[in-house]
C-alpha cells in the first residue's frame, strides 16, 4: 500500500486532483472537486486525409452533380444502394445509414462546402493549421481547443476537461491547459511498485514526469468509469483490437469516449481521430475503401450516442476534415486534394434536421476543379464554442482563433 499512497500523494503534489479514485482514497468529498463548469459536452472528430464531402453528403439535387461527378456519382435515391435523401438538395451516402435516424430526430446538421481559411493542399500543413486555428503558421504551436479550454475551465489549468482519445494528444488539444488522454489498453498494466519507483525517477524530468503522472491519473479515471467493461469474459482487454487505423478502429474509441464523457465528474471536451480518408485511387461509389470508412464512422457515431446515454442530450459532435477533394474523379477513379468538404454536427444539443450555411453549387468551381468554400470551419467552431460551451466571443476572436474577428460565429447551431 505504501507505493500507492506515494502515487496518490504525488498526484496531489503536482496538482492533478480530479482522479476519483485518488479523491476517494484521500477521504475528500468528491463533489467539492467534481463540479464541472458546464454540463455540456463537445466531441470533435478529426477525419485525417481529407474527406470527400461530395461522396459523404452528395448534393444530388444540384443539376450539375451527375455530370461533374461522372463515374463517382452515387446511385440516385430509390435505386439499389441509392443515397439516402435528406432534403431536395442533399443526401447521405448509403454507407452513413446508421446516422440517418438522427436527421429525422433533428439531431444531425449539415454544413456543406466548409474549409479552413488557409490555402494549401498539403495534408500535413492543412491539418496543423486547422488544429492551430490559424490561416498561416506562426508562433508556438498549440491547439484552438486547448485555448478554448482556458476560458471554459475559468483559468484552472489543471481541471482536465479535455480528453484526447487515441495514442497521442492531437495538436488541437495541445497547449497550456492540462488534458487527459485515453487509449485502448492492450499491454498488462504496470506494477504499482514499478510506477512508484519511476515516479521518483521522473520527478526531475519536465517532459516525462508530468506525462507519467497524467498517464497514471487517466488510467485510474478510465478504470473507474469503464470498470469491468474493459475486460471480456475471458479476461482479455475488450479493446485489444482497437487503436491503429482502418474503419474498425473508430467505434471502440467512440465507445470509450462516450463512457468517459458521460461520467458526472469526467471530461467535457474530447477529440477523436480517424484516418484513412486520402482516397486517390479506386475510392469507389458504393463499395470500397471510402464506403467502408464512412460505415465505420457512422457505426462509431451511433455507438457514441449509445455510450453517452442521457448525456447525448447535452452533446455536440463536430466532424471536420482538413480540406475537400477534387469534384471530378481523377484518372484512377479516385479524387485528389481539393478545397471545400463538408462538416457535420450531431447530438441531442444540435438544432439539426437541416442544412446550415450556403451551398456554392457545382457550376462554378475553385480553380476550375474544386468545390468552393462557403463556410469557414472557424465560424462553425466559434458558433459551437460560444453558444454551447459559453466561450466569450472576444476570447474566440483573439485567442482561440487569433485575428479572426472578421469570421463571425455561425449562430443557431445548437438548441437554446
Amino acid at each position: 500500500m505504501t507505493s500507492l499512497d506515494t502515487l496518490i500523494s504525488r498526484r496531489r503534489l503536482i496538482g492533478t486532483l480530479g482522479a476519483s479514485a485518488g479523491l476517494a482514497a484521500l477521504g475528500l468529498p468528491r463533489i467539492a472537486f467534481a463540479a464541472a463548469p458546464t454540463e455540456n459536452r463537445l466531441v470533435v472528430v478529426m477525419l485525417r486525409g481529407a474527406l470527400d464531402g461530395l461522396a459523404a453528403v452528395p448534393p444530388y439535387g444540384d443539376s450539375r452533380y451527375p455530370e461533374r461527378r461522372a463515374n463517382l456519382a452515387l446511385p440516385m435515391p430509390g435505386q439499389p444502394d441509392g443515397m439516402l435523401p435528406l432534403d431536395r438538395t442533399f443526401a447521405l451516402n448509403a454507407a452513413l445509414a446508421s446516422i440517418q435516424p438522427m436527421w429525422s430526430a433533428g439531431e444531425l446538421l449539415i454544413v456543406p462546402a466548409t474549409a479552413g481559411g488557409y490555402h494549401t493542399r498539403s495534408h500535413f500543413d492543412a491539418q496543423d493549421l486547422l488544429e492551430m486555428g490559424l490561416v498561416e503558421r506562426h508562433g508556438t504551436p498549440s491547439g484552438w481547443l486547448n485555448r478554448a479550454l482556458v476560458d471554459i475551465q475559468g483559468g484552472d489549468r489543471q481541471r482536465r476537461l479535455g480528453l484526447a482519445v487515441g495514442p497521442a494528444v492531437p495538436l488541437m488539444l495541445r497547449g497550456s491547459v492540462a488534458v487527459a488522454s485515453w487509449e485502448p489498453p492492450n499491454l498488462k498494466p504496470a506494477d504499482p511498485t514499478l510506477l512508484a519507483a519511476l515516479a521518483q525517477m521522473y520527478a526531475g524530468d519536465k517532459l516525462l514526469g508530468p506525462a507519467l503522472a497524467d498517464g497514471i491519473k487517466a488510467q485510474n479515471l478510465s478504470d473507474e468509469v469503464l470498470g469491468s467493461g474493459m475486460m471480456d469474459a475471458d479476461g482479455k482487454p475488450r479493446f485489444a483490437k482497437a487503436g491503429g487505423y482502418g474503419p474498425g478502429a473508430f467505434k471502440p474509441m467512440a465507445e470509450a469516449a462516450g463512457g468517459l464523457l458521460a461520467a458526472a465528474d469526467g471530461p467535457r471536451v474530447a477529440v477523436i481521430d480517424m484516418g484513412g480518408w486520402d482516397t486517390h485511387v479506386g475510392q469507389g461509389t458504393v463499395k470500397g475503401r471510402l464506403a467502408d470508412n464512412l460505415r465505420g464512422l457512422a457505426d462509431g457515431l451511433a455507438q457514441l450516442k449509445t455510450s453517452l446515454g442521457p448525456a447525448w442530450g447535452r452533446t455536440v459532435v463536430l466532424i471536420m476534415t482538413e480540406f475537400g477533394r477534387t469534384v471530378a474523379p481523377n484518372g484512377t477513379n479516385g479524387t485528389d486534394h481539393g478545397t471545400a468538404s463538408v462538416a457535420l454536427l450531431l447530438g441531442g444539443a444540435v438544432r439539426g434536421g437541416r442544412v446550415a450555411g450556403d451551398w456554392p453549387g457545382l457550376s462554378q468551381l475553385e480553380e476550375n476543379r474544386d468545390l468552393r468554400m462557403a463556410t469557414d470551419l472557424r465560424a462553425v467552431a466559434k458558433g459551437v464554442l460560444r453558444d454551447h460551451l459559453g466561450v466569450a466571443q472576444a476570447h474566440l476572436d483573439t485567442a482561440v482563433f487569433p485575428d479572426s474577428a472578421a469570421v463571425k460565429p455561425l449562430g443557431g447551431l445548437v438548441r437554446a
Partner: protein
Amino acid sequence: MNEAIIAASRFGYGAGPDGTHAFAADPRGWLKAQLAPQAPLLPRFAGLPGSAELVVTLQQLRQERRQAKAEAEASPRPSAAGEPQGHQMLPEQRVLRQAVLQETAAKLDAVTTSAKPFVERLVSFWSNHFTVSGVRPIVRPLAGSFEREAIRPHVAGRFEDLVLAAVQHPAMGLYLDNWVSVGPDSRVGQRSTRGLNENLGRELLELHTLGVDGGYSEEDVRALARILTGWSIGGPRVDEPGRFRFVPAIHEPGDKIFLGRRYPEAGMGEGLAAIRVIANHPSTARHVARQLAQHFITDQPPPAAVDRLAQVFMQTGGDLRAVSLALVDQPEAWSSYLQKIKTPFDFVASAIRATGKPLTPEQAINGLNRLGQGLHMAPSPAGWPDDAASWVGPEAVLRRVEWAQAYAGQVGDDVDPAVLTEAVLGDTIAADQHQAIARAESRPIALAMLLASPAFQRR
C-alpha cells in the same frame, strides 16, 4: 558526458552489454569509419525475396482471387453448405506473410547487433524520409524490400541516386499510385477513362525533396505528375515482371513546364532530368539538412547547424556520406545529448541491443504496434514524426513502462542490472537513479526501471 555513450546512443541504437570500451578511445572516428563508401550487403539480408518476386506473387494472388470469384459466381453454392475454405491461407499469402516476418527479423537483427549502428540509423532515417507504408495492405509485404533495395545501398551515396531508387521502386509506385497514373493524351489515355494521378508528384516535392515551402506551385505538382506518367511496374507478361518499367503507352506526350524550365518530350528522360534538378535544388538541401539536424541534434535544431549541413550538401552535389560525416562534426550534436526522446522503435531496438536478448519477429511486431509505431506502418507518406511532442503523451509513456515491464519480465532474470546500467548508460544517468536500480526488489523490476529511466528514454 561520456562521448562514447553519446556516439552509441545518439548516432546508433545504444551500447550493448559489453559497453563502449571498444570505441571509447575515439568515438567520432568510430562513427566516421562506419561510412565506408560502398557497404556490401550483409549476410543477414541474403536470401530474402526481392521485390520483383513479391510483386509477381501479389499479381498471382490477385489472379487466383479473380478466378475463385468467377468460379463461385458460375456455380453458386447454398451458403448453408459453406466450407471453411475462406480461412485457409493461399500459398501466395503464406509467401507474403513470410516475407514480412523475414524482413522484420533481418531489420531487427541489423539494428540490434550491427557493428555499424550509425549506418543502421541512417537507413531508418532515410526509410522514414521516403516512407512507403504497409497501412496500404498491398505495400505491406514490399516495405522491407524497399528499405533494403532502394534505401540501404544509397545512404552514403548521392542523394540524387537515392531519390531515383526510391521513386522507381515498385513499393513506391504502388504506395503513391504512380503505376496507374495515365497521361490523358497518351495512347492509353485517349481511348480509356483512366488519367492522371498527382499523388507521387506532390509528395516527391513536398516531402522528399523541396519541402512544402520550397518554392513550387500547384502547376508544378501537376507538371511533375505528367512528367512521371509511364513510370510504372512490369506486368506478368513482360521480360522482367514486377520491376520498374517505363510504359510509353501511358506517358503524357508533349512539352512540360516544370519549375520554370521547359522539358521537351523525352519519354522517361524527362523524369530523370526533373529528378536531377529537384534532388540538387537549394531548397532540397535545406529541407534535408533540417530533417537530419532535427533527428540527430534537437527537435528545434540550431539554424547554424542546419546552414552548415545544407552547405555541405550543396558543395558536394548531395553526397550523403559527406553530409553524414559533417553531422558527426557538428558540436551541437554532442552538446545537446538527451534532448531527443527515443521513438518507440528506437526504444525497443536499444532495449534489445542493451541486453543482447532478441525477441521473435512476432513479439517485436506486436510490441511496436502497441507502442504506436508498427514497423513500416507510418500513418501517412510524411512518415513518423520526429519530435517529443508526438511521442510523449500520458498514455504513450505508460505504454512504454508496460512494455519495459513485459520485456524485462521475459529476459530480466539473467542480467545484472547494476552492471548493465553502468555499461549502457555510464555517467549519463544520475547516481541516485543508478542506485535505485541497483536496489530494486527484483532483477526484472530493476531492468524495467533501467529501460524506462529518463536517461534510457532519451538520446
